[in-house]
């Protein structure tokens, strides 16, 4: 029997819950030689800004225990290039597209939202990147201030009725509080977690192993933290959640589904295993079949909180 993996996010219907985390799957066809992207439930783009961004100096990445630090710095060719060169690719591919956007001001976020509102044939949702911890200069880091976050949420909501997810990093402050506030502004769902801010030093040079003091920590190392936030946000607000943070195999993916995640965004794992997405998809299906779960919905959110298990010491 076939397992029904259909994933509904408000009025958006996806064939399965597997997507890719922003910035980890190239800009268009980088992984096309390895995976049939058509099989993904959705694709989340690298974050797009209004103007092109050169990003940070090199080196931008280094490995840490069960993870990596990155300080890419939102390098991208900007909105115009995206519309001209990337949108046509995704239109042809036909996989529901979630565009990740970041602005240097609420107005820019609004501008981006408005632009993509006009492309609903390709763009099915927006992910508002509130949290890139690597952008330290000027504009984008204004996000630290919570009122500004609300301005952004409002600016986006005013410009489009596209499904909108706010992507939150624990670095922004109290995740539950921020989630509650942006939901209050009419944002449909939450995407979390973005990377945690971290550091790595080369003892010989006494300096950072990347060209910035700090980078964003991603990969299996952060999975327990991500899982906990996804659970908390889902439990508190019952809104659609895109989960990311160290999802590397079917076991990880199942954990996120069980605590309630709607979409599973595979990130750093793509770098290690270009076929990670589809392998995970297959693993979820196999687990469901083994457990005789024929509709993914029956698994999603099936977590049994600790209290219910009985609290004996010796078991």
């Amino acid at each position, binding site marked *: 029997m076939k397992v029904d993996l259909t994933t509904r996010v408000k009025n958006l219907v996806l064939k399965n819950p597997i997507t890719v985390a922003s*910035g*980890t*799957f*190239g800009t268009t*066809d*980088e*992984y*096309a*030689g*390895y995976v049939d992207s058509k099989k993904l439930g959705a694709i989340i783009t*690298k974050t797009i800004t209004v103007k092109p961004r*050169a*990003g940070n100096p*090199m*080196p*931008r*990445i*280094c*490995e840490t*225990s*069960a*993870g*990596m630090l*990155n300080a*890419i710095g939102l*390098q991208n060719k900007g909105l115009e290039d995206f519309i001209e060169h990337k949108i046509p690719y995704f239109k042809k591919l036909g996989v529901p597209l979630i565009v990740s956007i970041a602005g240097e001001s609420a107005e820019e976020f609004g501008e981006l939202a408005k632009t993509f509102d006009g492309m609903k044939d390709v763009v099915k949702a927006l992910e508002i990147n509130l949290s890139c911890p690597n952008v330290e200069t000027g504009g984008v880091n204004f996000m630290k201030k919570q009122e500004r976050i609300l301005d952004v949420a409002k600016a986006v909501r005013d410009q489009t009725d596209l499904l909108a997810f706010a992507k939150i990093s624990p670095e922004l402050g109290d995740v539950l509080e921020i989630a509650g506030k942006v939901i209050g502004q009419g944002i449909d769902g939450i995407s979390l977690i973005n990377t945690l801010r971290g550091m790595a030093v080369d003892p010989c040079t006494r300096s950072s192993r990347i060209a910035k003091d700090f980078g964003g920590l991603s*990969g*299996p190392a952060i999975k327990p933290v991500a899982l906990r936030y996804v659970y908390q946000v889902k439990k508190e607000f019952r809104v659609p959640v895109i989960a990311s943070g160290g999802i590397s195999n079917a076991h990880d993916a199942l954990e996120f589904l069980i605590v309630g995640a709607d979409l599973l965004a595979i990130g*750093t794992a*793509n*770098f*290690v*295993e*270009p*076929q990670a997405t589809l392998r995970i998809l297959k693993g979820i299906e196999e687990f469901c079949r083994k457990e005789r779960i024929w509709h993914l919905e029956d698994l999603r959110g099936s977590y049994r909180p600790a209290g219910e298990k009985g609290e004996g010491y010796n078991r």
Partner: protein
Amino acid sequence: MTIKKYDEDVSLLENKRVNGKYFKLAFQSANLSRNVQPGQFLQIRINDGNDPYLRRPFSYYRITGKRIEILYEVLGRGTEILSQKKKGDVLKVMGPLGNAFAENLGKKKRILIAGGVGVPPLVFLAEKYPTEYLLIGTKSKAELMPKPELKKVRAKILCSTEDGSYGTKGRVTLLLEKILMDQHPGEFFIQTCGPKKMMEAVIAIAAKYGIEGEVSWDESMACGVGACLGCMVKTRSGLKRACADGPVFKFEDLEL
């Protein structure tokens, strides 16, 4: 059109120390060996699991039929673990990745300048295409390539060691300058790979003598396929990805 790429489990045919510096690893794969050119590389997953986590990039060193050889130096944890693998152990390998060195240099003579982990792709190049000079710089005699590994190279091989224990004493760029001073610089085309400082010095010399050339600019990599933007190189036509747009760049394109 999408070019099909490969990610295969390969079983090690050998993995052994060849001298004080390098290990050599070999395996077979039809897909990973087809139409490969010197300068291209592979992404090797050293262990299942998370330690080490990311793949590590290694240049093709030699291809004989379906047999692929990698020559590598133990520099950190990943290569340390790699060096402990035994015949029969299985690795996951992605490739072929990246662009390649120019094969056809027209009337120019090929001069290769190699150091450190830049030696393997240049030996591959020297074995495969007519080459005038192969210049190799090392710290001392202990790190020189063992003779059998160079026997198929028909170029003039000149070595320099920093401590003078073999060949010319000093940096490999001394050898280069000597050749350029003694001969007609305009006849040469340089191809180089090695430590950044060495490559920068080579490019500076090339500029001084007005010679063209190519460099394999090896940045630390995460994805190896152009997806993460972790390996950028600044060029005259903007930021390029060492893994997907390179690793080989023309001297004149680089903005150092």
